[in-house]
C-alpha cells in the first residue's frame, strides 16, 4: 500500500492555552487509489493532512508511512518519493527563473551540471514551458507559474504527487489547463481543493471538517456530504448581503461553490 496513516494526529501548543490545539484528530487510512481528493472548509485540517504525507508536518501521535518508510524516521526517503505542490507557486519557486528552479530541484540527484541542465530542459519541455524558461517568475501568469512549480517537482520523478489547493489562485482557463495536465500524469495524485468540479474527476474523496475525516467515498457522494455540511452550519458559508441563505444553497444548485 503506498500510504498508510495509523492513528496519526496533529496537535500544537498555543500561547495562553493549557491544552494543545488539535489540528487533526487521530486518523487511520490507507491511500492507494490513483486520484484522491480532500475537500473541506478553510481551516478544517486539509493542509495539515496533506503536509503529513510529505513529512512537512510530523504527527504528534501515531505514524504515517509511505511505501513502508516512516515520515519521521525516514523523511529523506519519503521526500524522494512524494512531491509536494503548494497553493501559491511564488512560495514554492525559490529561484528567479523557471530553468534555475527546476535545476535546483535536481541538484541533489544530478551532480553533473551539463546533465542537470539537460534534464531541467527536458522537464520544462514536457509542459511546453521551455520558451518561458529564462523569464522572471514574476513575469509569468498564474497558470504558467503553477505549471512551472509542477515541472520543478516532477523533474525528480516522484511516485506520488501531493497538491495543496493547486487551483485556488487560478482563473477558469488556467484551472482547466491544470486539470488536463494532472489528468495526464502517471503519478498517484492526492490533492486538496475547493474546486468541486475538479473533485468530481477523482477516484476517492475525503471530506474533512474540524480536524476530522467525516466522509470517505466516491466523489459525488462526498461532494453532496460536503454541501450538506455547509448547509447545516450557516456560519461556515460566508454570505453577501441579499444572497440566498444556507438553506437555499442546500436545495442543490450544482453551479454554486
Amino acid at each position, binding site marked *: 500500500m503506498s500510504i498508510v496513516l495509523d492513528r496519526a494526529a*496533529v*496537535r*500544537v501548543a498555543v500561547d495562553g492555552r493549557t491544552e*494543545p490545539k488539535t*489540528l487533526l484528530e487521530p486518523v487511520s487510512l490507507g491511500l492507494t487509489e490513483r486520484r484522491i481528493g480532500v475537500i473541506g472548509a478553510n481551516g478544517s485540517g486539509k*493542509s*495539515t493532512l496533506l*503536509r503529513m504525507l*510529505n*513529512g*512537512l*508536518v*510530523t*504527527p*504528534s501521535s501515531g505514524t504515517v508511512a509511505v511505501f513502508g518508510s516512516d515520515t*519521521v*524516521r525516514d*523523511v*529523506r526517503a519519503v*521526500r*524522494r518519493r512524494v*512531491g*509536494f505542490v*503548494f497553493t*501559491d507557486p*511564488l*512560495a*514554492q*519557486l*525559490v*529561484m*528567479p*527563473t523557471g*530553468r*534555475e528552479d527546476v*535545476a*535546483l*530541484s535536481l*541538484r*541533489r540527484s544530478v551532480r553533473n*551540471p551539463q546533465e*542537470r*541542465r539537460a534534464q531541467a530542459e527536458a522537464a520544462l519541455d514536457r509542459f511546453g514551458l521551455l520558451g518561458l524558461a*529564462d523569464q*522572471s*517568475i*514574476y513575469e509569468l501568469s498564474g497558470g504558467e507559474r503553477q505549471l512551472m512549480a509542477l515541472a*520543478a*517537482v516532477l523533474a*525528480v520523478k516522484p511516485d506520488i504527487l501531493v497538491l495543496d489547493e493547486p487551483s485556488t489562485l487560478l482563473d477558469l482557463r488556467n484551472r482547466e489547463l491544470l486539470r488536463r495536465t494532472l489528468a495526464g500524469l502517471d503519478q498517484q495524485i492526492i490533492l486538496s481543493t475547493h474546486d468541486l468540479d475538479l473533485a468530481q474527476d477523482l477516484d476517492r474523496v475525503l471530506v474533512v471538517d474540524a480536524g476530522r475525516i467525516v466522509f470517505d467515498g466516491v466523489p459525488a457522494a462526498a461532494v453532496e456530504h460536503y454541501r450538506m455540511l455547509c448547509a447545516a452550519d450557516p456560519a461556515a458559508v460566508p454570505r453577501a448581503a441579499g444572497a440566498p441563505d444556507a438553506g437555499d444553497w442546500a436545495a442543490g444548485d450544482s453551479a454554486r461553490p
Partner: protein
Amino acid sequence: MRGHGLLLANYVPGESPVHRAPLWLKFLLVLACGMASFLVADWAAAAAGLGVLCGVYLFSGAGVRRLVRAVRPVLPVLAVIGLYQWWQLGGPAAARIVLNVLVCVVAASILTATTPVQALLDGVASLARPFRRFGADPERFALTIAIMLRSIPFIAGAYADVRDSARARGLERNPRALVLPVFITTVAFARQTGDALAARGLGEADDPDDRTTGTT
C-alpha cells in the same frame, strides 16, 4: 509583490566575453572591488573604476536599464551617507565613499547578470568544499547564498508594498506601520521558503529531530 528585480540584477542570457569569462575571475573581480573600496583614497580613481565597471556591464549586453535598476535602490541610502560624510569629512572624502560603494554594487551586478544562478551555486559549493573536513556541507552553503540572492529583492519589494499601503491609510509617518508589517512578512516568507525547500528535500537537516513537530 514588487522589488523582485532590485539591487542584484537577474541573469541575462548572452554569449559576450564577460559571460564566457571563468567564474573564478568574476569572483576575483568582486573581491578585488571590495578590497579596493578600503584602499582607494582618491575619489577620481574610484570614479574611473566605476566608469570601467559600467563599461564592462554594458559590454556584456545586459543593458542600461538593468544597470540603472540595479543601482537605483541604493541611491537614497548613498545620498544620506554622502551628505553626512560631506559634513564630517568634506566633498572629496564623501565622493570617494559613495563611489566605492557603487563600485561594489556594479561589480556584484556584473557577476549576477552574466552568470546563471546554478553556475554561481556550483562555484560557491566548490569554494566551500575544503571546509567539508570541518563538517560544513557545501551544498547547504550554496543554497544559503541562493536564498540570500532571492530574499534581498523580496524584502525590498515587501517594504515598497507596505509603504504604499501605509500611505493609502495616511500612516506614512508612523514607523511602526512600516517596520512591523515588513518584519512579519519577512518571517512568513522565511517559513514559506523553508517549507518549499524541505518539501523538495533541499538543505534539510540529517537529524529528523531538527524539524519542528506539529507545525503547519
